């Protein structure tokens, strides 16, 4: 550039042109322009907001968090009483949201794995049942499914007196699902110690088997011994010292059930709809992941005499997981976000108790909206950071 300028005959006009056409100058100019637009927009919005709020007598402070909320919540995972503070309401909302997310993630992963494998089955009937299961359920809105399960199934169940029972322990009626609640019994400590010992033994065996395989090439059975170590000691301990857990059975008294755990119908409907809907997407992930492993891998394994089950477990799945896991995690994030649809059927999740009820009660729009969005942002930022680290760790190491 300097060379050109020194040799070319330059007038003021050409120098100006060169200055205007310079990439760096343009970049600075465009960025300054964008920044001033954004600043102006924010200044406009904020000044309007301040004026509106002063006119309506609203306040933006967080001081209301210590004030008693004064409304009840139908279902809480952590203890909550009417009269607890708004901060407590926020916590209750987060706990309920996380509970829904975790339960739905577990169920949808299992269902999705089954559907994805069924989609690849050699059997024409199974393949097509899985295909249409996926096509129908993922092409209808989730909110519609949640509402249909709630209004179309759970509110139409019989009243408590005619409830559907199973073994006199589990009951299903229009007030929800009743399960026996575990109570700590006399032999609980002994059984717990036995269980912990079993877990320690299982871990040790798994490590030993792995070392044997990697260093000596001997293959030891893993699944059977581990399961035995997990199940046998606690059962033996329980038989030896008497029942470690007592069960609090739900019982019909008058018009309703007492005792046991009551899971409200809104929770059941939400979990079922979320799990089924998400399982379709997970199923497609699993299918595409497995199909992404080249056929040559299967053929090579067959040629080396590896049996089919072991080919799947040790050769195809580890390679498929590389493809499956990133979209799987984003589905898990989607489940967390979609659990906010709980508000449509009155399940008290974060959006329902915080962004709806608390906002209407306290009128503190700005802090409440900021806290709700902040929670979801933190969750997805944390997950995507973990995801990036994982992606880097499984990158194929190339020459």
């Amino acid at each position, binding site marked *: 550039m300097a060379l050109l300028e020194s040799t070319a005959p330059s007038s003021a006009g050409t120098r100006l042109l060169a200055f205007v056409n310079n990439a760096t100058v343009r970049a600075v100019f465009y960025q300054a322009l964008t920044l001033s637009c954004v600043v102006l927009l924010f200044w406009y919005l904020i000044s309007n907001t301040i*004026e509106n709020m002063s006119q309506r007598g609203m306040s933006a402070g967080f001081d209301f968090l210590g004030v008693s909320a004064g409304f009840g919540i139908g279902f809480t995972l952590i203890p909550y009483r009417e009269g607890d503070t708004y901060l407590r309401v926020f916590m209750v909302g987060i706990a309920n949201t996380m509970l829904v997310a975790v339960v739905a993630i577990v169920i949808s992963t299992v269902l999705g794995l089954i559907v994805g494998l069924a989609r690849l089955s050699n059997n024409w009937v199974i393949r097509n049942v899985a295909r249409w299961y996926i096509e129908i359920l993922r092409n209808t809105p989730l909110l519609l499914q949640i*509402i249909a399960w709630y209004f179309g199934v759970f509110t139409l169940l019989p009243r408590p007196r005619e409830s559907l029972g199973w073994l006199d322990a589990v009951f299903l009626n229009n007030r929800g699902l009743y399960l026996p609640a575990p109570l700590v019994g006399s032999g609980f400590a002994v059984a717990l110690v036995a269980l912990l010992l079993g877990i320690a033994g299982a871990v040790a065996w798994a490590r030993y088997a792995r070392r044997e395989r990697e260093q000596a090439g001997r293959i030891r059975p893993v699944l059977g011994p581990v399961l035995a170590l997990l199940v046998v000691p606690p059962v033996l301990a329980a038989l030896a010292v008497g029942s470690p857990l007592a069960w609090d059975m739900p019982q019909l008294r008058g018009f309703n059930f007492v005792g046991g755990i009551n899971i409200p119908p809104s929770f059941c409907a939400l979990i079922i709809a979320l799990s089924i809907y998400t399982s379709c997407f997970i199923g497609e992930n699993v299918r595409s992941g497995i199909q992404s492993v080249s056929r040559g891998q299967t053929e090579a394994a067959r040629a080396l005499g590896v049996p089919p089950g072991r080919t799947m477990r040790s050769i195809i799945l580890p390679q498929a997981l590389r493809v499956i896991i990133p979209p799987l995690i984003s589905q898990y994030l989607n489940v967390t976000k979609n659990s906010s649809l709980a508000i449509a059927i009155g399940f008290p999740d974060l959006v329902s108790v915080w962004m709806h009820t608390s906002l209407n009660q306290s009128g503190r729009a700005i802090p409440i909206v900021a806290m709700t969005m902040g929670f979801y942002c933190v969750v997805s930022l944390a997950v995507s950071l973990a995801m990036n680290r994982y992606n880097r760790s499984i990158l194929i190491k190339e020459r």
Partner: protein
Amino acid sequence: MDHAAGPAATPPPAEIFRPRPARRAPPSTLGVQGWIRQNMFSSVPNALVTVIGIWIVYAFFDALFGWAIGNAVWQAESRRECLDEVGRAGACWPGVIAWIPNLIYGLYPKDQVWRINLAGLVLLLWAVPLWLPRVQSKVQIGLSLVLLFPLFASYLFLGGEKGIVWSALIALGLAAFLWTLLTAATETVFGLGIARFAVAALGFASRSDETRRRLAIAVLLAVYVVAVILVQALSLPFVPTRVWGGLFLTLVISGIGIAFSLPAGIVLALGRRSRMPLISLLSTTFIELFRSVPLITILFMFNTMLPLFLPVGVEVNQLLRAIVAVCLFSAAYMAEVVRGGLQAIPRGQYEAASAMGLGFWQATGLVIMPQALKIMIPTIVGNFIGLFKDTTLVSIVGLFDLLSMSRAVGEDTRWLGLFLEPFFFVTMIYFVVCFGMSQYSLNLEQRLSAGERR
């Protein structure tokens, strides 16, 4: 071996070679029988699974048809009559049939419904030329459809007083529609657009370029004048957005969301990939913020905050708040789709474009984007489907979309408690639209990649 050691006097009787009987041929894999054997009964467990699978499918369809058709009631005055006739064993369709107008148009005044139908017809006629093989101005028609149809349709839907500016804009929309129809007709028949065809038909084909260009502009202006006169003659009563609802509202919201999200997503994606740090930072912040929170929180936020953001005294109706939220949300998602497409384009394409002397906008518009958009079609359509499904969320912030309308059936005193039937009907509508879109995108993808297949 034993014989070899024995005396050689009598040779052993010659052993007659007897081939072992041939193994049976494996079952045929050809023909219908072979296909069934291979795909359904290849082994005992497989056969068992097939039988169980067929039984489940049969039981499902048997129950479904029994409920929806076999035991269903088609003629009744109220849900009570249905229940008296078949109980819960059969569907009660009269309730859904009575509500069909509401499910489609919401509470839109009955005598004004023709306006929605007319807009639908205009949309259809506007879009048809895009599929006619002989039409050449498809890009212009497509762009005018996305940009100018909303101008015309907004007046049809809303009606009421129109000032000078709005009249001019409505007329622009109508003029674009007339131009589309005329151009499609003349291009199909004569292979010339309307303006050039009119110039030729009027006998000016031999004049200079400059004269013909002026005449063509005059023809376009004439079309616009006709449109202005038509718009002036058209006077429609005002219908507030409060009574909009049903499938109509769902289509309005998702249509605007789709039309807005693609261009906005392209701008955001280019911003995120920009080498200017500030622009990249702003785009990334916007995209990540809107993608990490659920749509319902954005809807709530705009519902409570938009009135605060605007100057004192400015009223924003509920529909507009929902549309703004849906548009920004879907733009953020679309931006990530477009970014994915842009990343798939090899560096060589950018470098070749600069080597040819193309600037940033030329390279992006003529070289990069066309290739990237082609790769992205399935994901873009997937996003559109997601957006269409997500519009159901506006029912939570108090709009009467298709889903709210279907819930309202069961709250009508005559059809109290009738939930399953309207849900079934609405599910069918969503399924047909979404499944149709996804199958069409598969088809489009295959046609566009025809050159790469071997």
